[in-house]
């Protein structure tokens, strides 16, 4: 390995990058744009659930219950209807998510101290939203039920009894339960992975397609120098992207950064090196730019998005797929990012993840070197 030749490749590759101003601009602007757009758009917070109410009872007691729903910020009562048909139509056409039906005789049953059930009709298509809505609605009705019971006891001269055992919820790390705090750190990792793979996946395939590889072959350049030199050139862009993404996450989205900045910088750099090598490996393995691009995208975007634990929890996957996630580098960097951003944990909790990323980078470097070597021979 010669430092001079390495530098020569590095500079040549930088020229390639800077010459094409449009591509360079895109490589720098796109991650930030993606982060801004998706950071705002990709929200899993469920509130203002559009709801229709069918009040068959029509008494002051039933209206009192409706008021509970109207007063909650989780529900948006879109109207009071008289019949199941509007609810059915609303759910069919995605206008509403839930229907609340208060049956006839509700107030009599409640006044007589009998069970007075309320019907909740829920669109279950989106199971995740539905379970959250269900939780809100059942909690609301349960609290109302308790309140009613206390009033009744009061009026009979008994003592009001607060619930004997109460659940006291305390949420750590993301106490406002905003999904952006969860989505944005992972999103940074996913975007970096995609950009890095895209940046490098074409670099060697292009040399082959344009015939410049022959020229490189006639120089004393060695595979390791070529791989390393190309990687370093794109690393510069990757680091700029990463720095901007983290800044946007903190300044624009207000994601709390509780951990150490140097640790985050180190993790992102190690991760970048690994995925850039991967892009080069793909590029060397592919015959054409088209294949390189598709393989690069396929092997980075889908796993990073789906198997990294970015939004879909790894623990709920079947064991076979959980095993597969161990070879997805994004898995580790997502854990690192969330751990450093939200939990503020340090190296003693995260050294395993960091170590794996380093190992991944080394292995992929060796693979890429071998692949280029085969191609050269």
């Amino acid at each position, binding site marked *: 390995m010669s430092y001079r030749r390495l530098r020569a490749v590095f500079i040549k590759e930088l020229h390639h990058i800077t010459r094409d101003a449009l591509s360079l601009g895109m490589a720098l602007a796109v991650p930030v744009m993606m982060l801004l757009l998706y950071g705002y758009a990709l929200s899993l917070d469920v509130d203002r659930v559009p709801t229709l109410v069918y009040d068959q009872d029509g008494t002051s007691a039933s209206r009192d219950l409706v008021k509970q729903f109207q007063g909650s910020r989780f529900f948006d009562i879109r109207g009071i209807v008289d019949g199941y048909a509007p609810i059915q139509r609303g759910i069919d056409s995605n206008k509403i998510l839930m229907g609340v039906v208060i049956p006839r005789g509700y107030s009599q049953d409640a006044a007589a101290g009998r069970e007075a059930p309320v019907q909740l009709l829920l669109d279950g298509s989106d199971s995740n939203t539905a379970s959250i809505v269900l*939780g809100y609605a059942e909690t609301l009705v349960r609290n109302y039920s308790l309140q009613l019971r206390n009033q009744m006891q009061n009026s009979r001269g008994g003592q009001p009894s607060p619930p004997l055992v109460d659940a006291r919820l305390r949420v750590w790390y993301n106490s406002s339960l905003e999904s952006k705090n969860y989505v944005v750190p992972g999103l940074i990792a996913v975007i970096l992975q995609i950009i890095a793979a895209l940046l490098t996946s074409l670099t060697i395939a292009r040399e082959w397609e344009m015939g410049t590889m022959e020229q490189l072959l006639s120089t004393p350049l060695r595979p390791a120098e070529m791989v390393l030199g190309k990687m370093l050139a794109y690393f510069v862009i990757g680091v700029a992207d990463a720095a901007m993404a983290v800044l946007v996450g903190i300044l624009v989205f207000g994601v709390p950064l509780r951990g150490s900045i140097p640790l985050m910088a180190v993790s992102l750099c190690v991760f970048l090196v690994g995925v850039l090598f991967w892009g080069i490996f793909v590029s060397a393995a592919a015959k054409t730019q088209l294949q390189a691009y598709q393989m690069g995208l396929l092997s980075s975007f889908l796993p990073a998005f789906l198997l990294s634990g970015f939004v879909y929890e790894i623990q709920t996957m079947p064991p076979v797929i959980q095993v597969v996630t161990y070879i997805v580098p994004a898995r580790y960097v997502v854990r690192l990012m969330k751990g450093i951003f939200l939990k503020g944990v340090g190296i003693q909790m995260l050294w395993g993840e960091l170590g794996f990323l380093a190992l991944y980078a080394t292995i992929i470097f060796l693979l890429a070197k071998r692949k280029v070597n085969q191609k050269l021979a």
Partner: protein
Amino acid sequence: MWERIGVILRKEFIQALRDPRMRVLLFLPPVIQLLVFGFAVNMDVDHARIAWMDMDRTPMSRELRARFEGSGRFDIVALPANEQDVQEVLDRGDAQAVIRVLPDFERDVRRGRPTQVQILIDGTNSNTASIVGSYAGQVIAGFSGAVTLAQQNARILTRSPASPVALMLPSVPAKTRVWFNPDLHSRNYFVPGVVANIIMMVTLMLTALAIVREKEIGTMEQLMVTPIRPIELMLGKTLPFAIVGLLDVVLITSVALLVFHIPMNGSPLLLLFCSALFLMTSLGAGLFLSTISHTQQQAMMANFFFSTPAFMLSGFAFPIRNMPVAVQWLTYLNPLRYFMEIVRGIFLKGVGVSVLWPQMVALVIYGVTVLALSAARFHKTLE
């Protein structure tokens, strides 16, 4: 004319299927997406991992634990003994929540003094956290209700042992009925969405590249000296991918029904028809990309900037309802959004044209506009 289109069609099929790697790329992404969304993506919270910290250690606290375990929604994965263990178990992400029963729990309950059970939740994943929180709240409320009832009955019995009168107190239980996906499986929601994604992925990209490749390697000139006319070239270039797209729809739908047992409540024919409507837009967009790019690399980049937002803002993984209003408006520009609604509507809700016509009209408008624009541009770039 039809003869020439036929020739181009054959040429395209041969080109697309000749390369073994291309064959793989045609069919691998759909299969991977399908498998991952069918098997791996699971947003259901059915076995929340919790840590149990019992500082009371009485029969009553054990009864509460039994209720948690018996609910079928919780797995107790750790028994932290002190604050530090709690911190560590949450920091590592081993448990999603820690339930802490405070000392004197049983004594307080027996004396009728209100007491609390602490639930510490890892809020990193806001979504899971709120589901776990509401499940835990339900278990504790159930426990509380049972204990209260037992105590009240006991009190009444001690006061007037002869008459076992139960207290007449109202309760308002919520009777929930979940439509379309009663077991709340996220698979039923995601797999139909994959149909929409894949048809876009396959057709948009392949059309654009098929044309740009000819430009890049110079065979476009050769095609232009043949008697073929632009419209014929266009049809010949897009039809093969329309066929591949429709075959993908049939393939994925069959796998969804047979392997994943996704309910298909609506009409398969309507699904196929709407897919054809969507294909107009996606093939048209592919043509358009081919007119703005000179190299395959540009086409791929353009495709990436086109289809990623379309994917992210389609409501596939992230509900449109939750987006900021400005972004919600933006999604109306996204044809995939309409197709996503159609596919899910047909699969899960079993709705037909009477409900889906606005989306279908939108697709037709998009399809015709995009196709016409691209055709005009395509014509111009050829000359």
